[in-house]
């Protein structure tokens, strides 16, 4: 029989054991009777000889080897029974644990999905990303790493034996089908990009090698989202045609929903080599080509890197002009989650504090219960229970409690993740990959079991660790000094932890208030910002672009509710910027020595739209155009940096040729005249602008951008509109008017990424707001849990002191004296807890300062609000037991026990 069979047949085995022993006794007794002993005496002797039947049975059960399981079942039943007896205790403990593990599980789920889980490609750990690497720092934004030159990619792909390479480059443009136009993000992909990452179209096919060639068949693969929007999910979309960037394509495939490259979803994919622009043919041009590669089976990253270096070396010898000191670097492909990483760890840290409080809370409740059960446990020891047996029983009880708490917590978490993601500022990378999986369940179980062990241990170790007799003899009224001290430690640590969370939340609130009150430098009210795509046909024809933009401005101005309108390339507090070097003489130093400024190209009404204050000189007008003197307007920061106390108006700045928006000639620098000074705009957002690396700003007229660069500038253009009515209400008429259906364009002009300036400003504080929200929730949770803890402990302690209080009152103490007696006890604990918590807060504050942009250091005001709040709540929690104590009837109290 296996142990589990024995376990299942437990009842039958018990019967057999009983029968076997009875047979023995009867047999023995019969023999004695046969030899002349009286039946009663015979039975007595037989029993005496065998020993106590119950003890024999117990030993036989031990010998069976299933003892631990039977005990476990017994303990479980016992634990459930005791929990049912004290529903209040059970409910509070369960709720506490459920909240603690639930919140922790939500945070861990997100951390796991976003930071720890590999990318959603098959064998993602075999994927690498490749860059060109120069020996010296040559790019100010990317350091010494560059995107690939297309010929270099082709050579690497051909030469490499250890890697399968694939390339892609961003290519957004307008898609139109049946007079519906929409601006979409797209990718030009090498034919094997999909097979390298390991995801194929779920309908249709991927590109063929012969399509990834100049002059290849114009084929396009679309996202499942675009398929729904343009074709309503009709399978007949395969083989139908659509226009992208003004060119007709045939749809050959549809990617599965949620397919992403570098954390972004793209709507269209076209073959990379069909891009015939000159920059694709040159080895010294880097048109943003990203290279992914998959390691061949059995090849290590180091081996692949060695091979790439070798290829780089050969190419440098072969093409010294472009490839000297240039090699290739392979790095593991990771999700780009850097900007959310610190937020997530911060939140996980905060939530662990909540969990800690929850554990301490339940521990103190368990301890209180263990102390009041001391007599029961002592009784069990007296009846023969071993020390280990008692420890196991206590652990079983707390494990039952913690596991059910954990299960509840997982339930809470499963329902809490949705709202959490919805509140995440902007878009959380990989958000659609966030769900509970077995790792998270394991984590929740581990957390709850660990906490069970933590708080199960204290009472269990206490239990048999005393002399039995005095415990059995005293009533329940005695509280051991050690238990009282332990309780105080629990309460103190709970308060200290709550202080840390509360003050952190307070600091965040203070920071957010302070940041929101700052002046962004523009009037953010009633401003609409939208990117704008001209018709692809217009963009292809350089001569028409200026007129097309003028037409856009004129039409927009005619829309009811629009006050003024301007075009602008980069917008404050939105993604994207243009950093350009400047110098105050013609003798411009090398690239890494020139200071940088944020450059924005605008039309003359921009100042009016944004209501940026003009401090000196003038802004642009229609006379600043091609052929007239190049002019810029600088902000006061740049005026200070470049000219100090000198008068900036009329001075000149030189813009290094390779970065200059004023000419396509990269060899000489362009002098520009400063004609005005405007106020600084917090371009980087309210939180981080002060610490930003590049703060100086200048504006230049869009009209002075040379024809050669006009197309590139136009592809990135936005319009800024000041409205006299609610800005979002002009979106629809504006969209309608600007489609260009009635003008020369083919009805395929589109607005996209529409925001109000207020939204952008608010988004720039979204992270701080989100942190505040969650720290606020965690702090409130901590406060409630701490109060429950204080209440529980004090109620228990005063309960134990009832006889003492009775004596005091019999001797003449007033209810007020008694109340004070109890409150004094809790005040002591609160005071120490607050002191310790405040000390710990200084550390927590430093962490926040490091990881939260614009964080304000701890200030007295924050303490002045949060600490009294906590003290009041804690006093309220201790007030109830204190009042109950003061109502004790001395006569009843003295008779008790």
């Amino acid at each position, binding site marked *: 029989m296996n142990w589990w069979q024995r376990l299942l047949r437990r009842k039958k085995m018990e019967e057999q054991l009983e029968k*076997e022993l009875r*047979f*023995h006794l*009867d047999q*023995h007794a019969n023999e004695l009777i046969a030899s002349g002993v009286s039946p009663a005496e015979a039975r007595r002797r037989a029993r005496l000889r065998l020993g*106590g039947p119950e003890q*024999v049975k117990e*030993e036989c059960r031990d010998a*069976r*080897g299933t003892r631990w399981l039977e005990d476990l079942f017994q303990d479980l039943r016992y634990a459930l029974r005791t929990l049912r007896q004290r529903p209040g205790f059970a409910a509070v403990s369960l709720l506490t644990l459920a909240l603690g593990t639930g919140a922790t599980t939500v945070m861990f789920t997100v951390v796991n999905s976003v930071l720890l889980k590999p990318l959603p490609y098959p064998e993602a750990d075999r994927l690498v990303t490749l860059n060109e690497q120069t020996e010296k720092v040559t790019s100010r934004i990317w350091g010494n790493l560059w995107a690939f030159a297309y010929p270099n990619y082709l050579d690497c792909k051909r030469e490499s034996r250890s890697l399968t390479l694939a390339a892609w480059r961003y290519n957004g443009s307008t898609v139109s089908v049946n007079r519906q136009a929409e601006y979409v993000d797209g990718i030009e992909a090498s034919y094997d990009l999909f097979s390298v990452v390991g995801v194929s179209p779920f309908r249709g096919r991927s590109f063929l090698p012969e399509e990834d060639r100049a002059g290849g068949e114009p084929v396009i693969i679309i996202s499942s989202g675009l398929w729904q929007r343009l074709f309503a999910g009709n399978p007949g979309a395969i083989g139908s045609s659509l226009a992208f960037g003004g060119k007709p394509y045939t749809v050959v495939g549809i990617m599965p929903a949620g397919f992403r490259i570098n954390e972004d979803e793209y709507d269209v994919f076209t073959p990379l080599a069909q891009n015939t622009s000159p920059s694709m043919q040159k080895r010294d041009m880097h048109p943003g080509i990203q290279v992914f590669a998959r390691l061949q089976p059995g090849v290590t990253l180091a081996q692949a890197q060695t091979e790439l270096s070798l290829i780089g070396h050969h190419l440098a010898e072969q093409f010294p002009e472009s490839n000297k000191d240039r090699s290739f670097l392979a790095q593991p492909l990771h999700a780009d989650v850097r900007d959310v990483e610190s937020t997530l760890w911060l939140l996980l840290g905060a939530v662990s504090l909540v969990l800690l409080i929850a554990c301490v809370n339940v521990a103190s409740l368990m301890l209180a219960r263990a102390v009041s059960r001391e007599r029961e446990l002592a009784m069990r020891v007296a009846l023969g229970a071993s020390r280990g047996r008692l420890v196991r029983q206590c652990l079983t009880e707390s494990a039952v409690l913690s596991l059910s708490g954990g299960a509840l917590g997982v339930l809470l978490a499963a329902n809490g993740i949705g709202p959490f993601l919805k509140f995440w500022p902007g878009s959380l990378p990989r958000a659609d990959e966030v769900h509970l999986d077995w790792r998270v369940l394991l984590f929740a179980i581990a957390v709850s079991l660990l906490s069970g062990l933590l708080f199960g241990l204290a009472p269990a170790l206490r239990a048999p660790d005393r002399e039995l007799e005095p415990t059995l003899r005293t009533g329940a009224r005695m509280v051991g000094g050690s238990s009282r001290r332990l309780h105080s430690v629990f309460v103190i640590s709970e308060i200290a932890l709550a202080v840390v969370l509360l003050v952190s939340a307070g600091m965040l609130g203070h920071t957010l208030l302070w940041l929101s009150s700052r002046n962004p430098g523009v009037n953010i009210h009633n401003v609409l910002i939208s990117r704008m795509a001209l018709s692809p046909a217009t963009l292809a024809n350089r001569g028409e672009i200026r007129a097309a933009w003028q037409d856009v401005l004129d039409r927009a101005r005619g829309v009811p509710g629009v006050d003024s309108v301007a075009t602008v390339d980069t917008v404050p507090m939105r993604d994207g910027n243009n950093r350009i070097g400047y110098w105050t003489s013609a003798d411009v130093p090398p690239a890494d020595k020139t200071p940088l400024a944020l450059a924005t190209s605008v039309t003359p009404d921009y100042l009016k739209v944004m209501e940026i204050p003009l401090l000196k000189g003038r802004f642009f007008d229609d006379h600043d155009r091609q052929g007239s003197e190049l002019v810029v307007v600088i902000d006061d920061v740049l005026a200070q940096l470049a000219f100090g106390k000198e008068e900036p108006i009329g001075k000149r700045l030189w813009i290094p040729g390779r970065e200059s928006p004023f000419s396509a000639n990269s060899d000489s620098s362009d002098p520009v005249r400063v004609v005005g000074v405007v106020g600084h705009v917090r371009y980087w957002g309210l939180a981080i602008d002060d610490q930003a690396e590049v703060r100086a700003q200048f504006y230049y007229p869009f009209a002075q951008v040379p024809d050669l660069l006009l197309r590139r500038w136009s592809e990135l253009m936005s319009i800024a509109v000041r409205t006299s009515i609610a800005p979002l209400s002009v979106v629809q008429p504006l969209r309608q008017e600007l489609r260009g259906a009635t003008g020369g364009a083919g009805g395929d002009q589109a607005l996209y990424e529409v925001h109000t300036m207020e939204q952008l400003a608010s988004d720039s504080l979204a992270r701080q707001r989100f942190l505040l929200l969650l720290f606020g929730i965690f702090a409130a949770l901590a406060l409630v849990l701490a109060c429950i803890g204080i209440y529980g402990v004090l109620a228990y302690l005063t309960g134990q002191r009832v006889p003492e209080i009775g004596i005091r009152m019999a001797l003449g103490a007033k209810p007020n004296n008694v109340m004070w007696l109890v409150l004094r006890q809790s005040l002591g604990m609160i005071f120490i807890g607050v002191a310790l918590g405040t000390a710990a807060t200084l550390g927590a504050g430093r962490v926040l300062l490091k990881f939260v942009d614009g964080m304000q250091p701890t200030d007295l005001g924050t303490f002045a609000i949060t600490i009294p709040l906590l003290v009041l709540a804690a006093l309220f929690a201790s007030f109830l037991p204190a009042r109950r104590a003061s109502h004790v009837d001395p006569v009843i109290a003295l008779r008790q026990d």
Partner: protein
Amino acid sequence: MNPKSDLPQGTLDLLILKVVALGPVHGYAIAQRLEQVSQHVVQVPQGSLYPALHRLENRGLLSADWKETETGREAKFYRLTAKGRAQLETEAASWERLTDAVALILKLSEGGAE
């Protein structure tokens, strides 16, 4: 004074195995046989007999089934398994080695005392 000495530790199992090796037998008979064989010199604690039987059964050294005795009552009869027989042989051998060694030492010390 009780002239009977206690059973040395661990020998109860060996004795049980030896008794059972003679043929299927129930618990009471084992107790009887042990007392007879040891001629009332060794005190067999009957209380530990059954736990020992159950332990041996649990380890697969004994097997048991319920059969009728000559008096018509059902009793649990123990039998030696193959594993039990092997165990009996090794234990008996090691017991003999042990007692020989002890006897040798005792003789030596007597010699020394003379």
